[in-house]
């Protein structure tokens, strides 16, 4: 329609014209007045003339649809005038000419635009088909895109899920590998048992149990767990047998292993009880066997079953002839058992840290000082304190080897010297000096030491008064008492409390853990080693135990300080000693040491408010000395005598990337050895 409209707009007034034409032709049966024929065209065909004719058409003809041309022309006729036919004819001619011109023009225009119209229409049709095709393509495209999108998402998701599955399987495989190893451990455990490596076996077994507990969600593990429990019990049985063996033939090496094993099991007390039983039964069994041997020898073919006879009755069967040799043999056997017993006691006195305190019963030669030295490996007593203790012992303590019960408590007067002397003091059995949880009698230590310190303070307050009361001739004695005894009292704190710190943490274990660390790594690590966490955990326990004690007995700040200061110092020494255990070390390994120590410091500073951290530089300097160049190293070794020969040697020899030439390494080792000789 739009198109038709457009075409119509090209022909101004065409509608009116055509409608008027229609009117003329659409009256059926009506003979037109005049028919146009090309051949008998009434008027000229001159285009110019035509244009003129068209332009002469009155404007009113071009007005609107409601225009009635007939009426318009009729109105022109003046009713007042008579009809002038000529004029009318003339007008009619004009109108006809005009009509003809317009018709001609319309027909021309239609003809002229016909082809363009057809062409345009064709193009429109074409466009329409194109659009339809495009629509189909788009719809297809969109459908396929959405399909692809869906497929792609599904594919990605399945890749992701497969990847996840893979990761899970890998971790499962890792677990399975561990379990496999665990399962095989049993064989290794049996081997170790055969090798009599009880501590190793127990350690391994405990580790296995620990590992097994992390895998307890696997069904196969529960079986393994019970198997491990069985193995552990079997080990304990074997251990018990091994313990029994020591009664007859004591071997230090063997006994060491057994004791270590019991310590690992946390059953040292059981071991002691068992040992006593074993000794009893060892005595009984050997004696029985010897007597039985002699009795059977004499009885000959007698069928009496001596085996089941009680020992007492069996002895009745000993003949007079065999009496003496039997007794000799019995004595020999007893002697052997007793010798083992003696050696066992000896071992405990020398090596067992738990027993040292119990067994530190002083004899005449060792006395107080020895008691202290035994407890704290001898380095802590100041010379002044040592002298004071010695003087007190010499002047005030009775020099008896074994104080009888009658001598306990009451002072006795030594008749020769007419001096008051006291029996050797004994620790009440109520005081628990071996309990780690009570920090080796820390509360009792505090009560004793702090009371003494209080006394000494009071004496100091009294000093001026006493001096004014005493006769001048005696004054030097008083002054001596103050300078040699009263003032020295506070020095006691250090040895008394330090030994607590020394025993509170098993630093040996830390060394063990550190020895297993690999320091010859090739990468800068970002995670510290587990031994650091272990130490921090132990320190936390230490702190808790101190707090526990402090809830019952007030804990003075200096005591807190001594305890912490010493435990930190020992930790730091252990760090250096542990680092020195590294056989091979790379720069990256050194970095790991720094990382470990930094982690320790960071956490430690949250645990205690002791600042600065004692001996922090001791560790840091040691770690970093590794980076020194050859020339600097020699000077450094000479300047740092605080490190042991082992520690210095490790520094020089552990480097993997040959920081030094082999020759210079040897030279440095020589320097260390030379210093070592000077030290002795």
């Amino acid at each position, binding site marked *: 329609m739009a198109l038709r409209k457009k075409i119509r707009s090209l022909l101004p007034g065409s509608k009116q014209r055509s409608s008027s034409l229609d009117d003329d032709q659409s009256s059926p049966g009506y003979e037109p007045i005049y028919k146009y024929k090309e051949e008998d065209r009434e008027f000229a065909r001159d285009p110019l003339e035509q244009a003129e004719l068209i332009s002469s058409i009155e404007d009113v003809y071009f007005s609107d649809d409601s225009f009635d041309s007939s009426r318009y022309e009729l109105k022109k006729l003046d009713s007042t005038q008579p009809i002038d036919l000529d004029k009318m004819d003339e007008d009619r001619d004009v109108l006809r000419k005009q009509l003809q011109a317009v018709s001609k023009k319309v027909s021309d225009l239609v003809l002229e635009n016909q082809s363009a119209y057809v062409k345009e229409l064709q193009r429109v049709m074409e466009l329409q088909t194109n659009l339809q095709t*495009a629509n189909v393509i788009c719809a297809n495209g969109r459908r396929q895109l959405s399909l692809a999108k869906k497929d792609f998402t599904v594919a990605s998701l399945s890749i992701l899920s497969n990847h996840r599955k893979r990761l899970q399987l890998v971790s499962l495989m890792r677990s399975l590998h561990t379990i496999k190893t665990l399962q095989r451990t049993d064989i290794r455990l049996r081997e170790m048992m055969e090798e009599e490596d009880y501590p190793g076996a127990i350690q391994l077994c405990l580790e296995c149990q620990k590992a097994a507990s992390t895998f307890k969600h696997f069904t196969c593990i529960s079986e393994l767990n019970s198997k491990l429990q069985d193995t552990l019990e079997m080990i304990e049985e074997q251990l018990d047998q091994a313990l029994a063996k020591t009664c007859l033939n004591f071997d230090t090496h063997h006994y060491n292993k057994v004791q270590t094993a019991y310590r690992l099991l946390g059953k040292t007390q059981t071991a002691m009880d068992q040992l006593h039983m074993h000794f009893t039964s060892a005595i009984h069994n050997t004696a029985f066997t010897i007597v039985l041997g002699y009795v059977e020898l004499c009885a000959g073919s007698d069928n009496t079953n001596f085996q089941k006879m009680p020992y007492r009755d069996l002895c009745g069967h000993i003949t007079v002839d065999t009496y003496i040799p039997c007794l000799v043999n019995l004595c020999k056997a007893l002697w052997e058992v007793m010798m083992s017993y003696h050696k066992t006691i000896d071992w405990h006195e020398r090596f067992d840290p738990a027993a040292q305190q119990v067994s530190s019963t002083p004899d005449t030669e060792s006395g107080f000082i020895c008691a202290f030295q035994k407890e704290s490996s001898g380095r802590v007593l100041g010379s002044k304190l040592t002298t004071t203790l010695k003087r007190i012992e010499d002047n005030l303590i009775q020099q008896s080897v074994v104080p009888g019960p009658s001598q306990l408590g009451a002072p006795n007067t030594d008749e020769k010297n007419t001096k008051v002397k006291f029996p050797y003091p004994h620790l009440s059995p109520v005081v628990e000096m071996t309990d780690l949880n009570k920090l080796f009698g820390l509360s009792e230590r505090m009560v004793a030491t702090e009371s003494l310190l209080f006394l000494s303070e009071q004496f100091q307050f009294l000093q001026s008064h006493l001096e004014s009361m005493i006769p001048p001739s005696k004054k030097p004695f008083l002054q001596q008492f103050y300078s040699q005894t009263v003032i020295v009292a506070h020095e006691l704190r250090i040895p008394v409390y330090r030994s607590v710190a020394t025993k509170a943490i098993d630093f040996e274990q830390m060394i063990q853990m550190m020895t297993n660390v690999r320091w010859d790594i090739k990468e800068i690590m970002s995670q510290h080693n587990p031994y650091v966490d272990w130490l921090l955990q132990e320190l936390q326990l230490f702190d808790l135990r101190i707090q526990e004690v402090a809830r019952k007995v007030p804990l003075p700040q200096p005591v807190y300080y001594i305890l912490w200061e010493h435990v930190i110092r020992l930790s730091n020494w252990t760090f250096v000693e542990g680092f020195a255990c590294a056989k091979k070390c790379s720069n990256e390994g050194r970095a790991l040491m720094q990382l470990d120590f*930094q982690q320790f410091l960071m956490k430690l500073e949250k645990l205690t408010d002791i600042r600065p951290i004692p001996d922090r530089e001791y560790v840091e300097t040691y770690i970093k000395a590794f*980076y*020194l160049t050859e020339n600097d190293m020699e000077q450094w070794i000479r300047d740092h005598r605080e490190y042991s020969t082992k520690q210095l040697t490790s520094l020089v020899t552990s480097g993997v990337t040959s920081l030094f030439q082999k020759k210079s390494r040897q030279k440095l080792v020589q320097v260390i050895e030379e210093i070592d000789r000077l030290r002795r």
Partner: protein
Amino acid sequence: MSESYDFLFKFLVIGSAGTGKSCILHQFIESKFKQESNHTIGVEFGSKVVNVGGKSVKLQIWDTAGQERFRSVTRSYYRGAAGALLVYDITSRETYNALANWLADARTLASPNIVIILCGNKKDLEADREVTFLEASRFAQENEMMFLETSALTGENVEEAFLKCARSILTKIESGELDPERMGSGIQYGDSSLRRTRRIPDQTTQQCNC
């Protein structure tokens, strides 16, 4: 006892001797100026957990010795560093001139994606300045580094330098430009975000209008 964090970044502090690297580290960790500071032997280490854009990030910082004699040692610390502070002294042109060498070392020895921030330290010594802000800034721009002038003495811009570097790394992780799972990226996930699936940038799918 274990601290939790979303990411762990390995950082490196490099630059010529005496530019104040250890003082910057000390100021960052302890918030104090290290009065007596000797030449670093080998390497120093410090770590701190910081908050960057709502994420807690543990920075493990290796502060290397600047002296030439330790170069062979310190080179082994470059590997697997995610970020680096390249430090010079604004009062010493010599330390500025050496930057190109340090930069070359860092780019070849560390991960190629390492994010480096240039730090002109000793900003407080304005009177002795030998290197202008502008030329250093241009140098940084030319070499694709960020740039700040810092003062370990007053603490100005010290924390900012570390944070800026960390922030840049974090942005690169989020945009996918850095992959923390790649070996030697110097980046690790912390416990709290253990293998958390990373956000994929929003897909803006435009609907066709036909």
